[in-house]
């Protein structure tokens, strides 16, 4: 079921007033052998104006998602298709890294394996995923854009269950079981092999020159203990890794390219939840983990590498109290810490930043440097959220106080024999969040939200050589309005208007002679605004789906007094239509996507670089042209077979880009930039898969 925020108006007052739904419910146990037991299931209410929730089963049915519920997020309203080969989500004009991802309240760095091929969380562990493009409450912070909240599924209380699945991308499995009445456990894993299967399946031999084909794997484990009645402790382990290597051989030592990347993360978390009564909920979720990102590229004689190792830890705790019938209160704290060790070598221009003017395949700059530094960041974010209901009016007011402690190893670059002088500072931000909902009639509800958000500087930006240790937090202000219309009991029209202003963004220092430790400055500003309309049909005679249209504009400027330009990921029109029809054991699905092309900077000429024997482009106005629009029709059909009692076989077939539309993904220029053509996406991607569940 697709839940777009408005359905947070549930009949239970406790649900209305609390930020989190408090429930003591029987576990959903489809297997007939299971025995109902009381579990504690903490469910975040879709309170935010622009929230969209996708249940796992519906996400699996989204055409083009290949049975992966989290890939279904890519089809949700507000999501902009990122550039070719880049996996992170782009929502409402926020940069990919500004949308934060949480699994049961624990932040993870990536929702997808490289290129967006597959999610990093096992499909069997996902209960639902919620996308909030902006305007979320005070419980979350440290990001300028939206948030994605993944909720893992409760484990079955009886028997041994699991599945084995495979398709042409990867194979996965999950096994879960109960130990006694109080303990349940599950393990899951996935291994990708598309890097090995793609050549055998007809991929062009030079595909690797243009796109990255990753090797990936992930594993999860979860154990739940029922401590006492209405009290539960869960331990969850998440692991994901991606790697790819490619070499574009050349007899010319000046153009040989080798590239390698390694990305991984691990998270271990404990989640304690207690619901002492129907009016109170307590939760504490500490976590600990590691992130590792290593990128190495050598183009000709120019090496570039960035190695980041981060230890992450934190705790999220809250107490939700129903004070009276009209008033609820949530108190909590969101604490995050990260200690990063970083090493970087190579050109200042690699990796490119938003706003950099480059063309596809352009070699990095020849100027190189090196740095090694450490950053220690601790953010303590206590929050308070109050919920008040006056008849048809509901208001949620939140305050979040973020104390960001930052410690770095080098304030200035290593020049001569300068000693290593570190730095430390504390930034404090008080962010207010507000939301109001007013039910005009049984068919119309109005909503509005407003909030301030701060995000600490990225450790990668705090290098004294490649960045600026003096960077502080960036700021965003979100304003959303919503009109939610019930057409029929199962048909809804949701209208959302949004405005987001960004300030103090870290951007390149435009000076020809920047100050020491000043490669970045915090003068960037941004503005995104637009409207989104979603017509959705909930389950009706086996059909559900939605049609969403988003019109918007997102601008950036690097100097706060300069002119605005289009954001690198701006897409004016985004249309998405998703539907699925169940007919007996069959399910048929389709998805249509149309999006305005991404902005690009025109090449107006070129000059010859005599030393390097190559042409260098000359550019026109930044982001003043666009790639042609993107269009894609995806189809899906699946069938469920009952093999034996409690054993099912699901098979599916998908055809992405069923119209064979050649979508331009990038501009490829001739060596002297006198001619160009488009690199197009894969004309079609047909895939089949099977899953045996028990």
């Amino acid at each position, binding site marked *: 079921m697709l839940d777009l925020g408005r359905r947070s108006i549930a009949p239970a007052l406790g649900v209305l007033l609390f930020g989190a739904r408090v429930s003591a419910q029987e576990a959903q146990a489809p297997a007939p052998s299971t025995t109902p037991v009381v579990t504690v299931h903490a469910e975040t209410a879709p309170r935010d104006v622009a929230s969209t929730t996708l249940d796992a089963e519906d996400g699996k049915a989204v055409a083009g998602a290949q049975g992966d519920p989290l890939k279904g997020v890519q089809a949700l309203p507000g999501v902009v298709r990122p550039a070719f080969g880049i996996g992170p989500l782009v929502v409402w004009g926020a940069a990919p890294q500004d949308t934060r991802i949480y699994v049961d309240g624990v932040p993870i760095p990536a929702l997808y394996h490289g290129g967006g091929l597959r999610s990093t969380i096992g499909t069997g562990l996902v209960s639902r995923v919620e996308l909030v493009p902006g305007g979320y409450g005070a419980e979350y912070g440290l990001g300028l854009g939206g948030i994605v909240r993944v909720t893992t599924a409760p484990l079955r209380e009886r028997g041994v269950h699991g599945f084995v699945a495979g398709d042409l991308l990867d194979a996965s499995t999950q096994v879960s079981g109960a130990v006694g009445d109080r303990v349940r456990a599950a393990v899951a894993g996935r291994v990708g092999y598309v890097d090995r299967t793609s050549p055998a399946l007809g991929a062009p031999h030079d595909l690797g020159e243009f796109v990255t084909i990753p090797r990936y794997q992930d594993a999860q484990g979860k154990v739940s203990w029922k401590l006492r009645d209405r009290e539960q402790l869960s331990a969850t382990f998440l692991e994901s890794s991606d790697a790819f290597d490619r070499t574009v051989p050349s007899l010319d030592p000046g153009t040989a390219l080798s590239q390698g990347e390694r990305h991984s993360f691990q998270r271990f978390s404990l989640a304690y939840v207690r619901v002492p009564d129907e009016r109170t909920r307590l939760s504490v979720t500490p976590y600990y983990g590691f992130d590792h990102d290593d990128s190495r590229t050598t183009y000709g004689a120019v090496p570039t590498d960035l190695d980041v190792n981060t230890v992450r830890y934190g705790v999220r705790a809250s107490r939700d109290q129903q004070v009276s019938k009209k008033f609820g209160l949530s108190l909590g704290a969101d604490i995050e810490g990260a200690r990063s060790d970083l090493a970087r070598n190579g050109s200042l221009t690699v990796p490119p930043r938003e706003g950099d003017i480059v063309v596809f395949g352009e070699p990095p700059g020849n100027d190189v440097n090196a740095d090694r530094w450490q950053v220690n960041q601790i953010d303590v974010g206590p929050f308070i959220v109050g919920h008040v209901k006056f008849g048809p009016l509901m208001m949620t007011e939140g305050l979040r106080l973020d104390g960001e402690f930052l410690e770095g190893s080098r304030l200035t670059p290593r020049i001569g024999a300068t000693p290593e002088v570190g730095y430390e500072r504390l930034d404090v931000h008080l962010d207010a969040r507000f939301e109001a909902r007013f039910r005009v009639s049984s068919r119309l509800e109005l909503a509005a939200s407003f909030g301030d958000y701060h995000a600490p500087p990225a450790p990668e930006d705090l290098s004294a050589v490649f960045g600026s240790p003096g960077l502080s937090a960036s700021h965003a202000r979100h304003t959303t309005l919503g009109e939610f219309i019930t057409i029929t009991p199962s048909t809804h029209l949701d209208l959302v208007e949004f405005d987001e202003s960004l300030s103090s963004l870290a951007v390149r220092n435009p000076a020809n002679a920047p100050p020491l430790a000043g*490669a970045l400055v915090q003068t960037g500003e941004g503005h995104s605004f637009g409207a989104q309309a979603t017509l959705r049909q909930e389950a009706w005679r086996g059909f559900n789906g939605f049609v969403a249209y988003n019109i918007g504009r997102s601008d950036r400027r690097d100097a706060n007094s300069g002119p605005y330009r289009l954001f690198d990921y701006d897409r004016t029109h985004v249309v998405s239509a998703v539907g699925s029809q169940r007919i007996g054991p069959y399910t048929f699905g389709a998805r249509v996507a149309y999006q305005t092309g991404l902005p690009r900077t025109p090449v107006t000429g070129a000059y010859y*670089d005599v030393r390097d024997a190559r042409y260098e482009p000359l550019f026109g106005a930044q982001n003043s042209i666009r790639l042609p629009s993107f269009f894609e029709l995806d189809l899906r059909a699946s069938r469920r077979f009952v093999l034996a009692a409690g054993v099912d076989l699901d098979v599916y077939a998908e055809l992405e880009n069923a119209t064979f539309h050649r979508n331009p993904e990038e501009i490829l220029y001739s060596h002297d930039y006198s001619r160009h053509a488009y690199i197009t996406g894969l004309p079609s991607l047909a895939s089949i898969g099977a899953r045996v569940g028990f």
Partner: protein
Amino acid sequence: MLALSCAPDLHDDPTLVDAPAIVAVRSEPPEVSPGASVNADALVVSKDGTVAATSLAWALCTSPKGPAENGVVNSDCLADAATPVGEGSPLAFAIPSDACALFGPDTPPGNFRPRDPDATGGFYQPIRLRFDDALAVDLERIICNLRTAPADVAAEFRSRYVPNHNPTLRSATASVNPAVVALTALPAGERIDLAVAWNAGDAESYVVFVPGSATLATARETLRVTWYATGGTFDNDGTGPDPNNASGTTSMNVWTAPSGPSAPTRVHFWAVLRDSRGGLDFSAWDGTVVEK
């Protein structure tokens, strides 16, 4: 999964010369201190052969590029931010005495960021060249102090560093399986091995400052050859030392001779040999294609 093709074919051939182009500048010496003079000789090519570029205009760039600019030169240099030094080729001119301040690590008073060197530790004075519609930028390597190194390392660097010398390109040879063929009788339509050679000492060793460890390391120049012709096609735009040649003093490329009634019978060839510190040499020769 069925994956089909996605890359366009631009029929791009950087080796084909069909319009005037500036493809190389040989400076002697290739590495100088600011204030010193250099003799620069440009190779300007066209479909009619090497061009005597009497109207080739030279100008010294006066504005450094920002550290985050991907190109080799500030785009202002291609417009007004350059000081003309003369026309024609070869041409002698002096490198400005403030080159290390503008384009090197010397910073003006104040807390400014020293400029980053290239991977060989070099800094360069950009030189703009314009000939008809052809626009090019050459980089003359300049000798600057090692400002970012500890004093003892900088002193050792000064004592050990040997400025670059230009490599020397020797004459080209052509062969077909593996018989040597005369350049005056290149068989039409055949795949012909073209080879050039250089002197054994042209790939020089040099010391380079490693900023990550603040130490000196010894590196060796990489040599590469770029190829140009007015007809036919090369397998590769550029080539490195021939891996089959133990001495590493030759480089080979395969050139497919044109054929057919409209194919040219006279082809102009050029090879440009570059070392990784900016040293350069070039050679030109003519070939005659004959029907078998």
